[in-house]
């Protein structure tokens, strides 16, 4: 077999080859290059629908890679400094679940910060592992969860010597990193694996002056959202592993839930994005940093907003900070983050990543130009001029440490009853409640519902946060354990 280099695109090239060979298709998909659905071709473009083909010998098969997908995964592993890389087409959610389910079985313990993405707790509901939460630090002024301190990590490891692994956000949605290098050393000393959720950290692998990546830090597995800052198509992702885990077993675990009809649009986009990152990543992320720094400086000069940055770094709760994240605290102009988020979209035609109670987050990428950055800064300055009001009455915290009463799987599958949310104080929650984004559960199955949490939930709803997670689509009723 030919040996490929980082300049190659094994999957895309195989697709091109089969297109040029004008293969006659008596297989799925039935649109057959768009001929069977003219409107699809017209709407999505001919190049796009022609790439939408099924697994076949020359194109390999994601469930059992042996040719071009295998080669493309090898190149990705090399590019990210991993021993193995798995292409994931069910979103980073599937990568996170693949990690957790690869390292623990029902009843096993896994240590994680409570401000994990819902996908991590979902994995626990599915496979019955038990979380041991480390409460993240909290920045009182900003109201956001921070990282885990080494003291908390060490204590938790010592108290739970039977835990199989520890999961680390690298970074959090807001860009905050824990001391992953030391966590890896400590965990490995105690025979535990380290899993990293790098949904927001693809750029760490290619940029300079950024926090350390999980693979460089020696972590055993990482879920990397290539589609977020890496430039691949939405829903495509990577699961990276070191040879400390059995890659063939990981593949089996992934195949428990991943589709058997992997999209070649997604697969080839991972391939193309990997090549681009290797070639241009350094430059792209330097520019991204420069734009974020410029925006932060201009926004902070305005007064009223606080675009936070590396000054948060205390080498403890915030071990490191990802400066490419443009997170802005808005409470001091008297507006909740979600209100600024809504005004930006509805009045100024600017869509940002999310707004929560006290902050907004704008994602800056290689796709931005000065013009867009200037528009965002200008719109924020206008919003302050027009809407600024007294901040009295605004909620000042984002994150409430939960009280865990029961394992997530046990609570999710327990006998439950549906009650009005506000009548549930003191009960054990049987499902999730969260704002999306960021998708960090306010309540997860097995946690005690408190007045504090109810007040927060009501406030978030009133301010217009997009709530989700409960069986009741209106988030008025909640399932609690009987």
């Amino acid at each position, binding site marked *: 077999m030919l040996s490929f280099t980082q300049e190659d695109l094994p999957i895309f090239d195989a697709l091109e080859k089969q297109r040029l060979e004008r293969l006659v298709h008596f297989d799925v998909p039935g649109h057959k290059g768009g001929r069977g659905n003219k409107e699809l071709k017209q709407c999505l473009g001919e190049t796009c629908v022609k790439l939408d083909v099924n697994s076949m010998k020359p194109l390999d098969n994601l469930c059992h890679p042996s040719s071009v997908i295998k080669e493309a995964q090898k190149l990705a592993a090399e590019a990210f400094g991993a021993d193995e890389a798995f292409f994931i087409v069910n979103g980073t959610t599937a990568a996170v679940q693949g990690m957790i389910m690869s390292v623990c079985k029902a009843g096993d313990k896994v240590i994680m910060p409570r401000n994990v993405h819902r996908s991590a707790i979902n994995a626990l509901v599915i496979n019955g592992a038990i979380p041991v939460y480390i409460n993240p630090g909290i920045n009182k002024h900003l109201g956001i969860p921070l990282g885990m301190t080494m003291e908390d990590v060490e204590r938790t490891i010592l108290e739970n010597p039977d835990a199989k692994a520890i999961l680390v956000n690298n970074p959090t949605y807001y860009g905050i990193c824990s001391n992953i290098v030391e966590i890896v050393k400590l965990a490995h000393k105690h025979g535990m694996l380290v899993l990293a959720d790098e949904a927001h950290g693809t750029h760490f692998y290619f940029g300079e002056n950024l926090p350390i990546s999980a693979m460089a830090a020696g972590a055993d597995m990482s879920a990397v959202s290539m589609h977020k800052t890496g430039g691949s198509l939405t829903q495509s992702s990577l699961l990276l592993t070191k040879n400390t885990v059995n890659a063939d077993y990981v593949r089996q675990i992934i195949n428990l839930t991943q589709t058997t009809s992997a999209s070649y649009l997604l697969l080839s986009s991972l391939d193309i994005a990997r090549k681009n990152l290797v070639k241009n990543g350094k430059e792209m992320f330097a520019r991204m940093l420069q734009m974020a720094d410029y925006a932060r400086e201009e926004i902070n000069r305005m007064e009223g907003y606080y675009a936070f940055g590396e000054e948060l770094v205390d080498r403890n709760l915030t071990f490191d900070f990802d400066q490419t994240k443009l997170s802005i605290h808005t409470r001091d102009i008297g507006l909740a983050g979600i209100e600024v988020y809504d005004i930006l979209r509805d009045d*100024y035609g600017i869509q940002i990543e999310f707004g929560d109670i006290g902050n907004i987050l704008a994602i800056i990428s290689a796709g931005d130009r000065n*013009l867009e950055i*200037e528009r965002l*800064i*200008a*719109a924020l*300055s*206008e919003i302050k*001029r027009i809407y600024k009001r007294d901040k009295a009455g605004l909620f000042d915290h984002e994150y409430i440490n939960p009280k865990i009463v029961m394992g997530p799987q046990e609570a999710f599958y327990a006998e439950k009853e549906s009650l009005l949310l506000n009548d549930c104080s003191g009960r054990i929650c049987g499902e999730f409640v969260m704002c999306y984004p960021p998708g960090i559960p306010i309540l997860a199955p097995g946690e005690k519902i408190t007045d504090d949490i109810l007040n927060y939930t009501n406030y978030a709803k009133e301010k217009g946060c997009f709530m989700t997670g409960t069986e009741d689509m209106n988030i008025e009723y909640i399932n609690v354990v009987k």
Partner: protein
Amino acid sequence: MELWYTDQHTDNVRFSMKVEKELVSLESFYQKINLLKTYDYGKVLVLDGELMITERDEFIYHEMAVHVPMAVHPKVKKVLVIGGGDGGSARELTKYDTIEQIDVVEVDAEVVRICKEFFPEVSDSLSDKRVKIHFEEGIRFARGIYDEYDLIIVDCADPYGPAEGLFTREFYGICWKALKEDGILINQHESPYYEQHARSVQMAHKHIQFSFPYSTVYQCHIPSYPSGHWLFGFASKKYDPIKDLDDEKWNNLGIQTRYYNTKLHQGAFYLPNYVMELLEI
């Protein structure tokens, strides 16, 4: 051999002129810049393939952008021109002795350099000592300024390139606060005729109305622009473009113009029905 330049007015409509020679062709940080010498339109400035101004008919655009507000506002001293790197708006403004300061904010220094070298008919007044050129994004320049200008003229390209940010609600809001309490904003407002442009005309008008208590448009005829039927926005904090027109005072200034006069000034604000419908005026 014949060399023709084509300006794509819409996906399905083209406007072409025969070219004598190409004077400049280069790519700046922001855009591709061409300066052509044509037979019937004289020199033509082209940015990213789109026609900006021609030697033959630029006077219509620049006279209408400048003299309309100048004949309404009684005491303009300080003017901000956003865009306008070719110098045409500044040329018309320097005809007024009462103006003390003209800030021209052009994002692309190359446009100014090329116009100064090859298009002196338009750019000469950029060397007037009242004119100060700032090479910056217009939206950034104006963001930190409050209550300073009597008149702002937005003299920019269409909203599908570097000038996109100058057709937005945030930009018009920033202009509002940069103007004094009786300030006027004039903006290049595109043509209402073709559907694609009509939508941006409509959007820009809505955005201006959000900030300015008084806002309307006026029209002129510019042969080289798409459809030829061109609009300017007139947004003001205090003055009405017709009621507050002091035609006697303006005519006594003795300013030479080839398109503008105070009778045409009034007529320019009477709009076709379809334009009134589009803008809900």
